[in-house]
Structures are given as C-alpha cells and as structure tokens.
C-alpha cells in the first residue's frame, strides 16, 4: 500500500502504508521511548494524535495480551521509520501490523522520521493527516490536515472514558505467570478513579498497594463519589485540553473541599491546577518519552519518568496554596505539586509507567500514605 503523510505546514512524506487503509487526522507528535509501543498505542491519552515513534525498529515483540493499557488503539495513526518485522517474544500473540489492521488504524513506514521529528521540534506540534491506500493523493491528505480543528479547547475525554461505573481488583501479574493480572483478596483501601481515559497500569499499581478501585465516568458528580465514602480519589490521565473539562474541575473542587485525599495524574494534574486557580498552557511539542528526568524537590532525588502531555500547568499562575514538588530537568516545567494544607497532590508525568521506568511509582506510595493518615480506612 502507498501512504502519504501531510502536515498542515505543507510538508509531505511519502512512504509505505500498512495497518488499515484510509484517512487518519490528528495532531502529530513524536515519542522517543525505545520500548513500549503497544502501551503507547493503547493509551487513551493519545486520542486525536498521530504518533511518530523515533526508534526505527518498532513491532519487534508483537502484541502481548497482558500489556494493554486501554481496551484498544486510541491514537489516530502510527508513523515509523521501518516496516515492522516478524515479532519475536515468548508472549507475543499477534503482529503489530495485524493489530493495526484489525483496529482500523492506518500507519506509514519508510520515511525519514528523524527529519520529521526535527521539524516538529523546531516548528512545534501541528495538525496532520495520513492517507493509506492503493493510490494516495497528496493534496487530499494536505486538505484533511488543514481541515482538522486541532486539540485546543476540545473535550476528547467523552470519546475514550468509561460510561459506566465499574470495579477493579487486578494487581500486576508476576513475570513467572506471564504477567497475567491476578485479583487481590484483602483490599485495605477504597479508591475512586475518575476515568478520563485512564491507563490500566494505574489501576494495577493501586491494586498492588491493596486498593480496591471504583472506576467512575468522567462526568460523575462529586456528591455521588463522596457518597461512596472512598479513602481517596484519583483523577486519571486522558486526552485533550483540560480547559474544556469544566465539569471535572468542578467535581475536583468539591472532592478537595470534602478533605478526601486527592491525587491528580497527568490530565488530572492539569485539572487540579485549574481547580486550584492556576492556568494551563499548550506546549510547543509537549513531552512524549520514557527518559525524562524529574527532580523531586523534597528529597533532591532524580526520577526518570514516562511522559506524555501536550498541555502543562503554568508555574507562574500557581496560587499560594500550593507548592511545587517536582520539576522537569529538561525544561524546568512543572511536574508535580501539592496543596499546602490538604492531602491533595498531583504529578504531570506517568508514575504508573507502562511504558517506561518505575522510578516514580513511589508517588503511589505517597497516595496510600495520605489515605492511611487521613482516612478511617475501615470501609474497604
């Protein structure tokens, strides 16, 4: 199959198409992680985005059922340097191209992804379209790219988040068991997770820490959540512009006011910022990778973190009630904050990893400690 990738600035990349044929539109970004393509593809936060992976060999380990972060592929399209090869891994059950085809996701390979990455780095993220088919037309792709409304002001959460409340008890699987998730038997805490497009590993890490999770839809009123009498509430990651989610900001304010330990993660972190009175900004090309150093200002330690965000909380706009706990050592941007008086804190990166290093998972321990300290935790 042929493929053409058009950027709104007019640049055109011709390559080989694979996965599904058809047109995909979105904001194009690049991710520099060398492992974890399956987790990236199935991360709901990539809704509305065309993902370029900078590592040239992707698909090497196929698709492994235990490594799904969401129920399906959420990004619009995939851009690679080399066509995926026959995978090799003891757990692999499917090839990456088959997975893309079955999910209707088009992909392109055989283009100079480094040149594309440099363009995005220098010019910033922009809208793009990928057209895959037997014959593809550059002007059609370009028109589609230019017609995309963009992510600013968009509520993409409704596209990806759960519409119904559900329970989660599955902990991370052990390597010896092929990483198959195992239910926990004696939960000690009850956590409500607001689903804006959560990654499964958040839930697994909570279960690993003896938490029973109730997953609620993004628009669940705070009163309903408070009525569940949780030990803590986690506002998940998710796609799009946090500014567009006023219902979530409102719910957050009420939960905080109820003095329930609150943990904002990625989009949840940005929502917390807004809820507390700060502003968010759209970044030039965002943070997407698994090698980002973040400094914990309290301990002085450096955490190597997984990152995936195109919006950030503007440090300048932070109210006096919060303090900065983490900053990016790449660009100094805000990576974590905590309320001065309340058990409320947040993290911009992905402490749940999946993919990426586990350094920041200690933040989940902080959350559990806060629940332990504040809650009666008798109702788990």
């Amino acid at each position, binding site marked *: 199959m042929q493929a053409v990738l058009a950027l709104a600035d007019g640049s055109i990349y011709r390559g080989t198409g694979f996965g599904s044929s058809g047109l995909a539109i979105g904001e194009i970004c690049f991710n520099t992680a060398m492992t974890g393509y399956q987790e990236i593809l199935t991360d709901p936060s990539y809704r509305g985005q065309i993902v370029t992976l900078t590592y040239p060999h992707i698909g090497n380990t196929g698709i492994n059922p235990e490594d799904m972060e969401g129920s399906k592929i959420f990004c619009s399209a995939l851009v690679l340097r080399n066509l995926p090869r026959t995978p090799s891994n003891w757990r692999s059950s499917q090839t990456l191209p088959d997975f893309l085809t079955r999910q209707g996701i088009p992909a392109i390979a055989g283009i100079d992804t480094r*040149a594309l990455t440099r363009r995005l780095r220098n010019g910033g993220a922009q809208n793009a379209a990928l057209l895959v088919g037997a014959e593809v037309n550059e002007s059609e792709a370009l028109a589609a790219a230019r017609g995309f409304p963009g992510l600013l002001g968009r509520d993409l959460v409704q596209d990806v988040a759960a519409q119904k409340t559900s329970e989660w008890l599955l902990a991370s699987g052990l390597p010896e068991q092929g990483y198959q998730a195992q239910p926990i038997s004696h939960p000690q805490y009850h956590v409500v997770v607001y689903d804006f497009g959560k990654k499964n590993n958040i839930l697994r890490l909570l279960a690993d820490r003896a938490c029973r999770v109730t997953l609620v839809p993004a628009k669940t009123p705070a009163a309903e959540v408070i009525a569940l009498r949780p030990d803590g509430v986690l506002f998940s990651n998710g796609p799009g512009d946090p500014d567009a989610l006023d219902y979530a900001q409102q719910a957050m304010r009420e939960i905080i006011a109820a003095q329930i330990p609150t943990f904002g993660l990625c989009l949840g972190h940005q929502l917390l910022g807004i809820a507390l009175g700060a502003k968010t900004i759209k970044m030039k090309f965002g943070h997407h990778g698994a090698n980002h150093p973040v*400094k914990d200002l309290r301990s002085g330690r450096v955490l190597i973190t997984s990152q995936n965000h195109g919006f950030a909380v503007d440090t300048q706009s932070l109210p006096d009630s919060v303090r900065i706990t983490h900053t990016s050592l790449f660009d100094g941007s805000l990576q974590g904050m905590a309320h001065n008086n309340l058990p409320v804190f947040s993290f911009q990166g992905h402490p749940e990893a999946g993919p990426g290093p586990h350094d920041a998972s200690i933040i989940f321990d902080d959350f559990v400690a806060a629940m332990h300290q504040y809650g009666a935790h008798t109702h788990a």
Partner: protein
Amino acid sequence: MPKHQDIHSVLLIGAGPIVIGQACEFDYSGVQACKALREEGCRVILVNSNPATIMTDAQTADATYIEPVEWQTVARIIEMERPDAILPTMGGQTALNCALDLHREGILEKFGVRLIGASVEAIREAEDRGLFKKAMQEIGLEVARSAFGHDMDGARQIAEDIGFPVIIRPSFTLGGTGGGIAYNREEFEDIASRGLEASPTHEILIEESIIGWKEFEMEVVRDQADNCIIVCSIENMDPMGIHTGDSITVAPAQTLTDREYQRMRDASIAVLRRIGVDTGGSNVQFAVNPVDGRLIVIEMNPRVSRSSALASKATGFPIAKIAAKLALGYTLDELRNDITQATPASFEPTIDYVVTKIPRFAFEKFPEADAHLTTQMKSVGEVMAIGRSFQESLQKALRGLETGVDGLDEKLLGNDPETLQKLEQELRIAGPDRLWYLADAIRRGWDQDKIQQTTHIDPWFLEQIIELVQQEENLRGMPLASLDALHLRALKAMGFSDRRLARLLGCRESQLREQRHKLGIRPVYKRVDTCAAEFHSPTPYLYSTYEVECEAEPGTKPKIMILGGGPNRIGQGIEFDYCCVHASMALHADGFETIMVNCNPETVSTDYDTSDRLYFEPLTLEDVLEIVAVEKPQGVIVQFGGQTPLKLANDLEAAGVPIIGTTPDSIDLAEDRERFQQLLQRLGLRQPENAIARSAPEALSKAKELGYPLVVRPSYVLGGRAMRIVYAEADLQRYMEEAVRISNDQPILLDRFLNDALEVDIDAVADQDGQVIVAGIMEHIEQAGVHSGDSACCLPPYSLPENIQIELRRQTVELALALGVVGLMNCQFAVQEDRIYVLEVNPRASRTVPFVSKATGWQLAKIASRCMTGQSLKTQGIPEIPNPPHFSVKEAVFPFIKFPGVDILLGPEMKSTGEVMGIGASFGEAFLKAQMGAGEHFPSSGTVFISVRDADKAKLTPAARTLAHLGFQLIATKGTAEYLRQQGLEVSTVNKVTEGRPHIVDAIKNGKVQIIINTVDERQSVRDSFSIRRAALQMGLTYYTTLAGVIAGAEAIRALMREERSVLRLQDLQQN
C-alpha cells in the same frame, strides 16, 4: 551535592598493556577521567605501564608514572605523591586488583588514601562468585543454579538436583581445560571424572546450562544520592555460551517488551545498590530464557568496561567522564549533557538508530589455537557501525571489519556432502566466521527454524539476515543498467556496500558508484545526539544513512581529515590511534577544523570531543569518498592509521582527494620490493640478499641460490603476517603451499636470514624542505628474526657502538630524502658484525611512535602532522634530538595464556597484542620495569633450568655465570649441563621429556623450577620442548626463548637484587 571538599589530588590506576579482554577502551576511559578530574581542579597522578596511550602523555595528567601497575610500585608512588584518593574503576580488572592489593597490604590505611568510585567490599563482592551469588539471592534475583563437587558421588547428586544439561568447570585450570557440557548421565560421568582429575584442587563447578539463552547487558550509572540511570541496553545476537567480547552485539536491546526491559532495569539498579557501587558506571549482564522469559543475573563489573566504552560511543553519553565526576561527589543532575549542552546528565539516552558491534579475531596468527568461541574471550578488536536499521548497521560493520569481506560474502562453495557437513558443524559450534557460514546455509536453502535450532540466534535477527541473503541472490546476474533508482536506494538503505553490489552484479565497484551517483543516490549524515532529535545538538558526531535530510552542516574553516585505523588487530592497534589523536590535537591547535573518520569504538579517536568533527564510519573507499564529498577537506592524512588508510591512498588520490604528506607514490616505492631495491642500489645501501618468487618452483630455485636459512613472506603485509624463517627446502615447500592461499597473486619475498644480527628500529620525521630529524634509535633485545613488534627494544641503544649509530642516522636521513618523506618514517636495520643492512622502510607512522615520543619527550606525530600541513621543522623549533640520558625499554605482551595448545616461541610473525615501557637510570632497571609491567615476576632465588641449542652455548656462559653468582641453582639437560660444567659451573642434570620420568616437566609442575631458558631451532626440538614452554606458561614462570632475552633478564635480576628501582615522573624526565 557539590564536590567533596577534601579531595584535591587523585591517583588514577591504568590498565597496563593491551591484552585480550583489556584493550584501548581503558585508554579512552582513562583519558576522559583525567580530563574530568582536572576540570574540577584536582591534581591527577597517573600510573600506567602502557606507553601507547594518550593517558600517559605528559599533558594528560599532572604527574605521570609509566611504571608497572602492581601494588609495590604503586605504593611507592603513593608515598611520594600522597594523593587524597585513588580512582580504581578506570583501569579494568588490573586496576581493581591493584586496589585490592593496596588495601590488603595496608597501604591505603598507612597513607590515609581513600578509594573513590568503588569500595573494597564492592570489588570483592562483584568478583567472588560465591559472594555474588549470595548477594543476588538476598535481593530476590536468580543466578544460574550451581554447586561445587569434590568427588563423583557428590557431583552426581548435584547434577541430578540441577537437571541436564549441566556445565562442568574444573577449578584452577588454564583456559577452562577439562570442562564441558553434559547433556546426559553418560557424558556427565566422563566429563566430571576428567574434570576432577584436571583440577589441581580436585574440584569442579557444576552449573545449570543456560547456553542458547538470550544475553543482555545494561550499562548503569549511579551517583551518591542514589540516582540511577541506564545509559544503554545491549543485546547479544550470539546467545549465551559465547563471551560478550566475542559476540556480535546490538544496541539498544531489540527483543524485549517494555515489561521485560523495565524488569531488567529494576534488577540492574538493585544489583548496583546491593553490591554498593556508590558512584560511577557498572555493567550488569543478564540471560533470558527465550521460552518463558526467566531472568538470570550473570555478572556485574563495578567499573567502566569494554561495554561501557561501546555504550558511550553508541549513545554519545560519556560514561567514564561522568563516572569520574560522580566519584568526586557530584550528582547526575549537577552535570551537563555535553552533546546537547542544554540538558543535564541525569537522563537516559534514547537513540533513533541501531548500533552493531562485531568482534575481530586473530586466529590466523595462532593456527594451532582452538578457534571455537567459548566463555573465554579470544577476539583482539572490534568494529562498531551505526545505521537506521539493523540490516544497515550490520552490513556497515561487516565492511568496517577489514577482513576482506564487503558484506555477507560466501565462505563455502559447492554442495558436496563434505561441504554440507562442514556447514552444519560451523553453525552448531560457533567459530569466528559463523555469521558468514550462516549466510551460506541460507543460500543452500536452510529454513529459519533449522538455523534457529542450530544456532539459537533469535528469529528477529535471523529473519533480517535471511532477507539480506535473498536480496543478494535476486541480484546475481542482473545487469547494472536494469537496477532502477528505487531498487538501488532500497539496497543502499539496507547497508549493501558498492563493492558487494558490484560483485553480485558482475561489474566494477567504480561502475556501480558512477551509476549510483548518476541516479542521485548519496548518503546523508545524521547526528548521534543522545536524545533522538528531541533537543538541538551542536555536536557533530555523525554517521551515514540513506535517507532524506542531511545534518552534516560542514563548516567553512580550513579543514584536515584524519583517517583512523579501524578495528584493533595484532600488528595494528592503539599505537596508530595514538598518532591519529595527536594529529588531530596538533592541527586543531593550529586553527584547522579536524575531522576524524574511524569505526573502532574502543579508541580515544572516536571520542566525540577528540576532533572538531567525528564521522563514525567504516574505512572503505566508498565510505571515505562520500564523506570527502560532503566535507571537501583541504587535506587528508592517511599515514597515521596504519595499513587501513594506506591501502586506500592510491584510490583516494586517483579520485582527486588531496592526500597530504608523503605521496602515495613514495609509499609504494618503499613497499614495492623491486623499486625499493633499485633505490637502495642507487644510495649504495646494503640489503640482505633477496629474491622475489611468484611460484613454488621459482621460490625453490631462488632459495638454492641464496642459501638457507631464509626469511619468507608475502609482499604488502603488516605485522609479519605469514612471515616465516625457513631452514631447509622442505620447510619452504610447505610454506609455499600455505602462502599462495594467503597472498593471492602477490609475489613471495625471500630474504637471506642474518644469523645473530642485531636489529635496530629508527623513527624519523621529515619536512617538505628536506630537513630530517632522527627521533630515536631503538636497539632490539631479541636478535633479528623476531618480529619488531614482538621484540623488546631499548632507547637509546645499550650496546650498539657510537660509530654504528652515527652511520644509522646518516642512512636514515638518506632514505627519507630519497623517498621524499613528509611526515613520519620508520626504518628497520640489521647489524651483523659491523655491516648494516636495511631490512625495511615504512614512510608512515610506526608502532614505536608513542614509545619514542614518551622516551624522548618529543611528540613525533604532532610534529609530523605539522610538517604535512606545510610547517617546516625549523619553524616548529624542533632541534636535533639527542639520545636521552635515561634508558627506556619497550617489551611486548602476548596472548598465549588465552590459547591453549599454542607455542610461545617468537618468530617473524607478530603475535603480541600490546606493549609496556620501563624507564630507568640503567638498562637493567629499565628492562626490569618493562618485564614487571608485562606481568613477569622475577624470582630472586631458586632454580634455573637451561636447555639451549648448540649455537647458543658459547654465549650462554656469561649469563649462566651471572645467575649462579646471584645465588640461583642451575639444572640442565645432558648436553647443556656437560657444556656448562666444562665452563666451570655447577649444574645438575635433568631428563628431557623423551628421556623418561621424572623429567623436566614434572619438575616444573612440582614447583622446583623458577626460571626457564630454552632456545631451539629445528622443527624436531621445537616439538620436543613444547610441553616445557606450555608448563612454564601455566605455572607463570619466567622463561626465555632467546639468548638475548636471558642476558637482559640476568641484568634485570641483578637490578632487582640491588634494589635499583626508582619510580620516575614523566614530567621530570621530559624537560623540553
């Protein structure tokens, strides 16, 4: 955290000579460490016996000691210099062991010196298998199951508990002799009983076999605040069972899911924390069962390593430099990423290319050696290549190896049962050429499953190699013109070289290149930037690929390109890299933009901050021409990188590349036997009688005319490849059969062998105004006939009369002028009685340039590179260089211990991997230090065994007398004993091996002999005494196979017993 305030001076321990398993990567690391420590205001004191290193340049450290790396010497240096701390993690296992010795002997405590980078406990726990295993179990990591057995009953029980197959390793046998893999009980009975017998302690280690598992390595850096980063993951294409140093390896790891990768990352960090590497770099090796993902820790090294050098080159993250700063107390976030200059060092490099490393072997030098790859390293060098796909990086590495292959060249022709059987065997039991046999198997239709079951290579790699071979097969017989742009571009992107394509298409390389250029298919250059283009990189560390955007951004300053030496091999190693680095330093200082081209990841030359620009590329005509096309340098230097760039000189010049210095024609004049002979005749200089033969009958008849013994060799070789001394017609006949195979159509050179002649090496430098300066005269200690690279030598000469020296200088100047040398020149002479013979002239950098530079204080390669860019010696202010007042001895170091079954006799074929230098006020002292640096432990009492050929007997007496005077007992075989008794010496007699037991080998094995003197000439006695020399090697005894060595050795022992041993600071010796 800021730097420790109490560390003002640091002693850095170097790795000593280049040996298999410990090569120039430790110069690269050490130089980085020195620079880093001095940047922080530390006074750096350095000890290293290897003169061919940049680290032992007087400018690299504040106080440099070219002294043996052993605790007593280092203790004296500590006493003199009183460093605050010792950094032992930059000099390989040698430095770690030395640090442990210093601790054990109480030296650290006595002088209040602390170890930084790794503690005694960490070094011990990482090294001791038992302690390491226990530590791993404590942190919940698995190691291979194993236990020691002391008798068959116990051994059987252990094997049953572990389950077959098991690996049996006898304790304390050389090179693992007597071990093996048992797949069943029957095999176990056999191997285990043999192993128990072979072990001097009757002990065998029985270990779970993880042969065929996937093998990975993680390069980890940790600071004192416990921040840990993984700099690079490496996956071995060759699975477990083959030493990592001998494996084809790929970075980053290719076949791990994120889950598995992160598990390995967590485990690596846990290992560092448990072993207690507080600051610095370490590597952790893992095995993964491909069937169920089971993860096993193999080992860890609490220091920088060959792998960390590779990881640094592969990612652009300078591990040694960062590790040195962390050892001073910094944390990672306080240090900058040099490549981006904008981000901190506390991150994990991410790359957007594939790196492949392929080892280079030297089995052709050791035909008797077992060429199978095992867990003991045997390779002598490596090549690294970068590409935007595995296929591209693999094929670039293949042509960068310079073993005469352009890619996956055919090894075997034919389809007969014998060939097929060989193929099967070569795939099953890996040797140095397995990859090429693998390609042959694919050509013969083996399917992927069969190959995988035979080799255990992961299918992800196999599939891509299969595709490469299929692409090749599709091309065969295709006319060049029918290859369209799209197809050719795709092939180039897969890494196929022009030469390989030309061969497949049946055209000339130049035709293919012309067609490629016509179609507009040229490589672009991408940057190694540590971050996959996320940040701007101002550092021009480049590699080629076939893509769209070029990031070379060539500058406009006048520029000089230096072609490096490629992978290390015997005969061409660190000495040439040293010259390239010096050229770059000098020309950079002169205002040129310097451009380095090389593909050896171990070297200083491929450090991104050695030159203004670095192209990490193979040194083939194709690759060099493409870089020249982009950079358009004013001059290209080919005379510093050894044979590698010299081979390209004519073709480069023909392509219009501006080669500076001595012209390729002059180089040819010196290499071409006939032209050179005419030149010598014109100058009235003498040569050993010689002849050229192009066939065996011609050789035999010419030999008859010249008379035996003869030195025979193919023309155009380096390191004495295939060079022999033949004593009789039968020898020559046999030689001719082999040599024809080695040299193809090159003629064979026959030289009259000069018996008992002294050999002399001279390095000189000449400018374009015709001024020539003789930089150093080196008198060899071994007589002519031993390759100059294998011979010890002394500067200034220790016995050569003054008038001969004057005449040698005169002849050298004549030769340089006649050859039109601009730059370096090396001459080899033989002096027989008072007659001087010219053996060889090489108008290029020689192996001895670093040694001469260290001995005299004049940095020849720098001077020469300035001559080449047009500065005269006069404008540089270089005077006549007199003989220095102190003696410097260079001694060669050999890899025999790694090759069971190989004889240790020296000859005209070079076999040494490295060299050491000893400096002293007397020849004896300098020689003693050189011997100690080479690992020789001279006994000061005991028994000397003597067995020499008749011709040596007369000269033996004074040396034997000296040893007797020094209190040694003498024992000898019958003939030698009788002779010595006649000379009035007291000698007891011992049986030869053929004379019945107890014989000399029994005495050696029983520890009754301390020194062995054994010279031989004819084939028969060589064979008879082989077991003596191997036993000596195994027991670590002092042994001499040349009489000249004995005489020098006696001098050294005299110096040892008089305690004439100072430690000398290079900076004090080099006052110019």
